[in-house]
């Protein structure tokens, strides 16, 4: 009965473990690490409890922070992404998104691509601005946002395709 809940818990732990053990150690070109753990926030069921999503994203970010010694930057950016998620749904899928059954976890359509891409951009921009914490570094933050966002996007799409639920 609580299939969705169990699926989300498993997804939470799996993405967190993958982020800490694998993706935090990639260091492409010396400094680019993808952050595909935010897929948890993107794949969270569309019409379920918002408060639950906020708390879960906060905990997700906080755990990543704990492993990277970065204070609260992941927690803050995950939380903001979780809060903005409905707005992005509206932007990408049109006003009536709530009445449709959207599955992000499906074949990649332009709408889904838009949604994933702007979500990743938002998360990464907030993340890097908080990391540098100075407006003089805005150019570096933007550059890193774009470079990392592309990398995260590729990895995220690969993960979505790998774990696509079987069609019966």
């Amino acid at each position, binding site marked *: 009965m609580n299939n969705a809940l169990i699926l989300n818990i498993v997804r939470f732990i799996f993405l967190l473990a993958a982020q*800490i*053990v694998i993706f935090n150690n990639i*260091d492409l070109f*010396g*400094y*680019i*690490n993808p952050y595909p753990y935010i897929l948890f926030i993107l794949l969270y069921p569309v019409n379920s409890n*918002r*408060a639950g999503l*906020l*708390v879960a994203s*906060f905990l997700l*970010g*906080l755990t990543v*922070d*704990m*492993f*990277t*010694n*970065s*204070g*609260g*930057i992941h*927690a*803050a950016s995950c*939380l*903001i992404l979780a*809060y903005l998620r409905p707005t992005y749904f509206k932007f990408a899928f049109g006003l009536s998104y709530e009445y449709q059954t959207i599955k992000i976890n499906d074949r990649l359509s332009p709408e889904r691509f838009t949604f994933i891409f702007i979500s990743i951009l938002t998360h990464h921009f907030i993340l890097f601005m*908080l*990391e*540098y*914490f100075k407006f003089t570094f805005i150019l570096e933050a933007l550059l890193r946002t774009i470079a990392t966002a592309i990398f995260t996007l590729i990895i995220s799409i690969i993960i979505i395709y790998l774990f696509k639920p079987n069609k019966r």
Partner: protein
Amino acid sequence: MQQIINFVFKNSTRLLFLLLLITSLTLTIQSHSYHRSTVVNSTNVLTGSVFEKMSEVNTYFSLREQNNKLAQENASLRKILFNQKDSTTILKKDSLKGYDKIDVIQSRVINNSYSVSENYLTINSGALQGIKEDMGVVNSQGIVGIVEKVSPKYATILSVLNVKSKINAKVKKSNHFGSLIWNAKNAGYVQLIEIPRLASVKKGDTIVTGGNSRIFPENIPVGIIDKVYTDTETNYYTLNVRLFNDMTNLNHVYIISNKESAEIKKLEKETIKADE
């Protein structure tokens, strides 16, 4: 009262969002202040044990290399040992004080970071092994960083590759000293600032730690000068220093515990207090 309760119920999601946002921003701001006392860091049992397991696997891939490094270091230490003037004085301690001033604790890096602007390392020994805050960390090739937070079994280290790090260092040849900082650009290079213009420095000179630090003993190797340029604002030299250490590949490190550090620190504090 009814209205307040209604308001809370109506905006519960928004209020929750604000509450969590404030918490995370507080943690962020705390981590950016200089001497931080953060709640969220990697010295706790959960992160420590995960890093420990990960490093157990990772170290297998570099065993040969690490062995070579340790053997080389043993060789150079033996060289010093054999070159003592009188072999009977090797292990003699200070007869007045009865102990050595500097103690060295061996440890292993279980988490390394070098890709962000504020990098920290985690090592697998802590207060139980005698590690305290503000101890210096070196390895066989040069300096690594300064101990930042200590838990019973683990400790985090403020890496030299951290924009908050500031270490006293000098040019070996001429003894002109300055501060070692990092501009967050390249993990192989750090910058030595505030070197006076009258110092004659050139590419290839060696940089070592200075004597003004109670954290590091004098003359620990840091790196060699890669480029010399003049700071347009202060008219001091700024030196680009290539580190001897490969900060992206650290395993065995040594923590330097200066037994007089606490005494010096206390004295300095009292002096400042007396001035006020």
